[in-house]
């Protein structure tokens, strides 16, 4: 399964990077979103896949019973998902604002600080 997910991660990275290399601001945002999904999936896969139970201590036990999914990558990804949403929200507003001010979404026309 790792092989398949590795390919999926590769596709997400490739599409994300391709979109970030475009001149349009809107496409840049889409690229950013694809890339963060790819990165999250990468951490998840590298942290080992287990089709087992969630890392949840069952009633009556006082520790996780193997086999269990590794909780640490999950904690990392949880943080990453939320942060990337924060970044995305900020970027979207920033670009919206820039578009309002500059009147274009072509990055090539945003090279000078003067409007």
């Amino acid at each position, binding site marked *: 399964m*790792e*092989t*398949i*997910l*590795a390919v*999926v991660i*590769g*596709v*997400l*990275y*490739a*599409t994300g*990077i391709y979109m*970030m*290399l*475009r001149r349009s*601001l809107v496409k840049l*945002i*889409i690229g950013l*979103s*694809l890339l963060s999904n790819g990165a999250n*999936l*990468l951490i*998840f896969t*590298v942290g*080992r896949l*287990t089709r087992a139970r*969630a*890392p*949840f*201590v069952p009633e009556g036990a*006082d*520790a*996780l019973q193997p086999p269990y*999914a*590794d*909780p*640490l990558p*999950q*904690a990392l990804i*949880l943080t990453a*998902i*939320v*942060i990337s*949403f*924060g*970044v*995305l*929200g*900020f970027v*979207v*507003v*920033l*670009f*919206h*604002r820039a*578009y309002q001010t500059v009147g274009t*979404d*072509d990055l*090539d026309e945003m090279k000078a600080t003067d409007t």
Partner: protein
Amino acid sequence: MISGGIIVCVLSGFMLALLAPWLYRVGRRATAWILALLPFIQLMYFVSLAGPIARGEVFVFSSPWVPGLKINLSFYLDGLSLLFALLISGIGTLVVIYAGGYLAGHHQLGRFYAYLFMFMASMLGAVLANNVITLFVFWELTSLSSYVLIGFDHEREIARRAALQALLVTGVGGLALLAGLLLLGQVGGSLELSTLLNQGEVVRAHHLYLPILLLILAGAFTKSAQFPFHFWLPSAMEAPTPVSAYLHSATMVKAGVYLLARLGPVLGGSDAWHYLVTLAGAVTMLVGAALALFQTDLKRLLAYSTVSALGILTLLIGLDTALSIQAAMVFLLAHAFYKGALFLVAGAVDHETGTRDVTQLGGLRHVMPITAVAACLAALSMAGLPPLLGFISKELLYEAKLQAPRAAPLITGAGVLANVLLVAVAGIVGVRPFFRERMATPKNPHEAPLSLWLGPVILAGLGFIIGLLPNTLAGPLVSPAVTAVRAEPSEVTLALWHGLNPVLLLSVLTLASGMGVYLGQGVVRRATSRLEPIAQWGPARWYDVALEGLNALARIQTRLLQSGYLRYYLLMIIGATVGLTTYTLAARGGFPRPDGATDVRFYEGGVAALISLAAVAAVRARSRLAAVAALGVVGYGVALVYVLFGAPDLAMTQVLIESLTVILLVLVFYHLPRFASLSTQRARYRDVLVAVAAGGVMAALVLAATSIRFHPPISDYFAEKSLVQAHGRNVVNVILVDFRGMDTLGEITVLALAGIGAYALLKLRLERKESG
């Protein structure tokens, strides 16, 4: 107890530098006299130590600075350091008083005092330092304070240029010096000079000896303006005259000479040392003296003659005989007195007449009698006439050169030639402006005020008095200095009269020829003016070319790397990552073999296919909404992966966030323009190539990472302690809010900042400047 005074001496200068501007605001005209008290007290302190040091004592003070790196704030006072410390504090006293008169009324005089004291303290630190790193720090501080002092008149471009030139030349040398000192410390096994001084045998036998020597010489030669680095010194004459007299004649430029003398016992005694130092000194001596003759500006005349004097000192240290070191120490003293006096006289003349052009000056003895006496005494000392200190020093000089271990006739010949030229320069600078007939000058001259003639009179007077009583006054200073440099007890006997011998003959010859050159200066200048085009291609030009080259290189690399286009930055980053990762994977044999995808359930494969197809669809979408929809599919697909592999928390969050993202994007994209085809076909192919390569590398990286496990997962700890210690069954949540609670706090902070930023952007009303 006494040695604690050393650090007080050094640090008090820095303190006073901080206070000086404020003191000037309060004290105004009297400030100079008050400020001069500090160097004067320091002078008294060092004088009081002269007795013990003459008896063979040394003072060491040490306090840890960066103990982990073996760097101590340690000081070492022996005969050599004492000689320099006396010059620094003594001439410093006079220069501070002089500056008060010379720059009276200047609106930035307070700042000038601050710079001057910063220099004074740094210079004292440099010659007193025991730890080589301490030495280096103070060494660089002198370069820095020299920079601000040369550029003190910062509204003139030429002053700024000269300041930068001096800083760059000495700065590059300083870097070489640092490398040399660190190597020396490693080879010698200590960073303390007092220990290194006994390691001469070890250092000279080491295979790193030559690199150490070359690096340290580069530092010393740039600082002491040795050929071909001499050009910064005449340019530095843009500084106010007190600075030229103090830094660029009496003290700072001699730091290189000090370093050579100081490290003589460690690095000296080898052939490489002998040839390099002697040759550099000899060439500098001749070039400086020759170039001096063609100047008409008083200060530039003095500057080139200073270059020549520095060459003489270097040459003497290179010869490395008991006699040559003796001559060097006496010459150091004599030169500081006469050249300091002449510089101060030049400043006073400039101050009173408004010009420094020797061709426009004459007959000043009638209007400036006191200055004239000081100038003549100093000039006669420079020319080497008895009974002045300059005479004694020149006698010693010739004696040392005649007894040079190698090529004595050549060295003596060069020495005589240089001295002949210097005699002429002494006449031009110190005698001619005061004799001849009166000439009209821009300002109507009067006798300079007390503050301006006090310095020259004392310095020139010292040259005279010491000349009369050399053994009583100079002996106790010079003997310990020679002892320190030679690393063996030395007794110096100085006398005016050595009897009729070849040395005296050379002196007479020098004087006679010097007079000849002085009188025939016009002829000489005309004859050699043809050489001027060659001089234009001198080292100053190399400096310009090197600087231009550096700027051009900076422009090229900026143009290459700083294109201003986001995608080129991205391309560069991605390209570098892909290249380096591929190389590392290939070099380490990390490319994994796929496991054949045997262990896949059909629905898992379906989800993977769904994500991939949706991602490609997002790229190929023609409308914004379709792209956002495809993006949503990618997100929900990823959430499914989380569900399938035991991460329900992640799946929940992902679904929630993905929904929010889609809503946000739909809302905002509504206000953004439609997709447009902006890139060219070629750019697209290039980007596809880069993107696919990056995707491939990431996929390979994932496979490589999953096929190796370096050490056991740290999650076992969380698995075990989650319930017991943190009382939570959901281990992921416990990690987030308990074990790594601070990280989560950071995450919340980031979110809050993003929220505030977005809010501010939305509320921001850009004020359009109404340009009517």
